[in-house]
């Protein structure tokens, strides 16, 4: 087990290095940083000075090692647009994104898995066919369309929920939260549902498919014939075995969640990291883009490693050596 974890960690580091290398190439060669740093009207001498001052005249590998050393300390340079360290800019907006993503995951997990179990028990009942048809729509509507339609119904026509922003927030230490005020919670409802909808539909379909396969197994028949209460058979014997791949999928789909969060944040003008990234891409603000990619890579890779290790614990059939 220890060797397995070490190997996964080593692999993770190699991947991070690869990502950092690509980021460095982007940073260095997608547009000349000297040009951006020195300003559009700098003379040739001024440009040379900037080149020297920032070490941009050094050979490639020295520049790269310096980039790595800085990156390890969370220093990716200042945003070209706001002149604030890119890392702080992203850190400041992280709580908003994390709160949105967690709410979305919780909603989609509870509703998705719950409905999936219900539907699998009588797959051919009319109302369950309707739920499945609904889930088909759920995976067929792109996130941005769900968001706009929800705004249209709940904000423009019914006028009961706010269409954009985060509402009132409170500071707890460095963390700006919207969970503690009524306005913060009403602002969260639509974006969280928008972001969670696709995941919800996917989880529903996965759970249903898994349950249908498991429910035909011998050990379930044994459990029924032992006279166990339905609650025990369904949740303890069947669902438990279905949940392993479902949880793995959820963990591994985190990249997808980040991508959809980007869309959701744009539509609801949610002041999170995704919104920041999109603005930075429009304005070619390389330091912010690079920081975002590195941070996303770090989070996704750590999550993958955690999921893999959890998987080994949950499933006794798998032994890594």
């Amino acid at each position, binding site marked *: 087990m220890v060797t397995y974890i070490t190997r996964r960690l080593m*692999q993770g580091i190699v*991947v991070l290095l*690869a990502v950092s290398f690509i980021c460095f190439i*982007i940073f260095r060669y*997608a547009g000349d940083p000297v040009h951006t740093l020195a300003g559009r009207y700098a003379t040739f001498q001024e440009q040379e000075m900037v080149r020297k001052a920032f070490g941009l005249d050094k050979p490639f590998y020295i520049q790269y090692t310096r980039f790595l050393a800085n990156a390890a300390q969370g220093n990716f340079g200042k945003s070209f647009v706001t002149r604030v360290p890119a890392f702080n800019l992203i850190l400041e907006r992280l709580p908003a994104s994390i709160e949105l993503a967690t709410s979305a995951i919780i909603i989609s997990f509870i509703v998705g898995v719950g409905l999936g179990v219900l539907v699998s028990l009588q797959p*051919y009942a009319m109302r369950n066919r309707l739920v499945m048809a609904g889930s*088909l*729509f759920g*995976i*067929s*509507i*792109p*996130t*941005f*369309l769900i968001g*706009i*339609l929800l*705004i*249209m119904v709940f904000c*423009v026509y019914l006028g009961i929920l706010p*269409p954009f922003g985060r509402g009132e927030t409170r500071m707890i230490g460095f963390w700006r939260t919207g969970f503690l005020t009524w306005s913060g919670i009403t602002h969260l409802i639509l974006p969280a549902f928008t972001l969670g909808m696709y995941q919800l539909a996917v989880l529903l379909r996965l759970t249903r498919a898994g349950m*249908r*396969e498991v429910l*035909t197994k011998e050990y379930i028949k044994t459990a029924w014939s032992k006279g166990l209460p339905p609650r025990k058979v369904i949740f303890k014997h069947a669902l438990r075995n279905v949940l392993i791949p479902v949880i793995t999928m959820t963990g*591994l*789909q*985190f*990249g*997808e969640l*980040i*991508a*959809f969060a*980007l*869309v959701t944040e*744009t*539509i609801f003008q949610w002041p999170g990291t995704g919104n920041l990234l*999109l603005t930075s*891409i*429009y304005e070619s603000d390389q330091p912010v*883009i690079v920081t975002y*990619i590195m941070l*996303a*890579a770090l989070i*996704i*890779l750590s*999550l*993958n490693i955690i999921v893999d290790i959890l998987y080994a614990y949950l499933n006794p059939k798998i032994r890594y050596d």
Partner: protein
Amino acid sequence: MTKRFFKSKIVHNFSHDPSALAGSFILLVFILAAILAPWIAPQNPYDLTKVSLDAFLKPPIWMEEGQLPFILGTDDQGRCIFSTILYGCRTSLIVGFGVVLVAGTFGIIMGVLAGYYGGIIDSVTMRMADIFFSFSTTLMAFLMLGLFKQRGVMVVIIAICIADWVRYARTMRGSVLEVKEEAYIMAAKATGARDSRLILKHLMPNALPPIFVIMAVDLAVVIMLEATLSFLGVGVPMTEPSLGMMISIGKDYVYAGMWWLVVFPGAALVLLVVGINIFADWLREELNPKIEKER
């Protein structure tokens, strides 16, 4: 050969399954509409000489102020919504089929090589697949387009292909690994068949079915992805029609109660994707031996 195909079990099941027929019918209608767009659209919305700014933001014809020939109304540039949808479906389908063909072919080749030969090709392809997968196709394609300076339908196809081929490579490798152990492959090997013959004649036909499901699902995913990217402004350029772009333009008018700018292109997109997904669902159940059919 053709006769055998038409008498096969899959064709029989297909023609007797209402949802499979409905799904492929929807897809077929969209393909026809996209091909015939220049002849059936009332207006070419991207020909500036045909578009008049006088007729901007008109509602659908059954509402007051509706105006012929704009059946579904017009957008802020005076473009006919119905015509733009037809042309937009063209882009959607070109990108969708383009990616499925290119990424699919490349992914299948890589998957077969990785699964059959193993070794370095296998480990490199699979590590790459792991990374691409954890970043997700959407995020990869988005970041790539964010960094590309060029815009265009081809650029979108390329970006999505780069992010997407690993999906095929992964499935194909798994399938090849399973089929490789079958007795008939061993037998073919024992008769001294060359690798190329073994792969093309014996391995591929038996390892491909799971890929068909992936292709069907992927077509839907890619069409949604193209719409999402165009919605975010990193997809096809302003000068090309796209359902995502239409919705992006329309979203600013939603607050003014002009729902038709969003609802019609949105409905077209969802209907197309639902049609493909229904077909994909059927195909998955059909090709999955694990689920017993009960009716």
